[in-house]
């Protein structure tokens, strides 16, 4: 199979890679670029563990082909913290113990950031519906929701 050359932007950096048509963006991120923060849970768009931003929209990287990323802007969990300084959502997930095994966590963080960027003051119901495509089998969700609500409060205070 012939490989396609793709130039794209990931977390603000210009990136080039070769990929086959049937490779997903998630395959490329993890296996070619070693950006293993995005996780593969289901591989069919049901679990949200591979959530990334594609041209400013929240998507599942497992439902995007690697070749589609040409000239697009991709943001992954690796771009969330500023150097050693955690994003408020990351900090609140730690404080609220909003994770156990951690496989779903990068997806939840990327999805929650997308929500708060769009709606800085969501209701609990809005948070729950927005994150309905992110599955977690450990926490029972409650701590995640509290962490997101707390982070939203803190981020509004800083603004």
């Amino acid at each position, binding site marked *: 199979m012939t490989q396609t050359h793709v130039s794209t932007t990931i977390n603000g950096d210009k990136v080039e890679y070769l990929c086959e048509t049937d490779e997903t963006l998630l395959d490329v991120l993890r296996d070619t670029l070693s950006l293993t923060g995005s996780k593969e849970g289901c591989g*069919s*768009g049901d679990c949200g563990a591979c959530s990334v931003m594609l041209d400013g*929209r929240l*998507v599942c990287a497992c*439902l995007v082909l690697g070749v*589609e990323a040409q000239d697009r802007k991709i943001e992954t969990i690796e771009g969330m913290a500023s150097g050693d300084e955690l994003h408020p959502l990351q900090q609140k997930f730690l404080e609220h113990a909003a994770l156990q095994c951690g496989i779903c966590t990068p997806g939840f963080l990327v999805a929650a950031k997308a929500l708060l960027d769009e709606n800085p003051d969501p209701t609990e119901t809005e948070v729950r519906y927005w*994150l*309905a495509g992110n599955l977690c089998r450990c926490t029972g969700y409650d701590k995640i929701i509290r962490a997101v609500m707390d982070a939203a409060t803190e981020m509004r205070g800083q603004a």
Partner: protein
Amino acid sequence: MRFEAPTSLNAAIELLENEAGVVRILAGGTDVLVQLRSGQVEPDLIVDIKRIEAMQTITEEDGGFRIGAAVCGAELGGHAGVCKLWPGVVEAVELIGSTQVQGRATMVGNLCNASPAADSVPAMVAAGATARVTGPEGSRDIPVEKIATGPGQTSLGRAELVESVYLPARGVHSSDAYLRFIPRTEMDIAVVGAGISIEMDGNGICTHARVALGAVGPRVMLVEDAATALIGTSIDEAALEALAQAASSAATPIDDKRGTVDFRIKVAGVLARRAAIIAVQRSRVD
């Protein structure tokens, strides 16, 4: 497997025409990628239509809206004009999958995937939407209910694609609604879906109605008897009862893990009634 991302409609049609093997058109990819991964389909060519500008846009046209084939659910839901004119269509599209899926999935993709349980299709059928089908011979506009011919099957020719869907203009006292039954709150496939569009005159009498049901037959169906039950009435209790009966009578569902025949027949009537009540309320708010 080749991948092409043409920037014009003509180039896309040419690619379809010149490929002898299996082709899949890629818009949001939320069905196609799942089919690829499960081995359900092994295409020789994938044509990504997202680089075609006209397919990415929502355009006002004769008081209605033309929705490009690559417009994702999140974008449609964020369009104030479409939300105001066809709230039932927008609510149906927004029921498809998660926030992540909404960032990719398209209404036209939902139509062409031809699932009998597709959420947006009963709402589009009720809206009287037309699909613009384009191929080597040119373009034609056909009612959306003529696209699916059975589960996963469409009436599209080998080198044809749906370029856009048109949601028409409508009168002042009119609105629409879509409801589906699922056994949980979110993230599920319709056991039954009901889309209703109505238009009332200044005296509160229904002058026009369209009723469509999903997941109760091999394809989404337009139920004319159900619409007849509403037309000429004030959509009072008797009309709603007649609507529910007509909807239940039209349902020809199967038993499967998501619902039994008897349950689906009953729920088709219940949802049609409830959707009609919502559409009437919305038509008054306007």
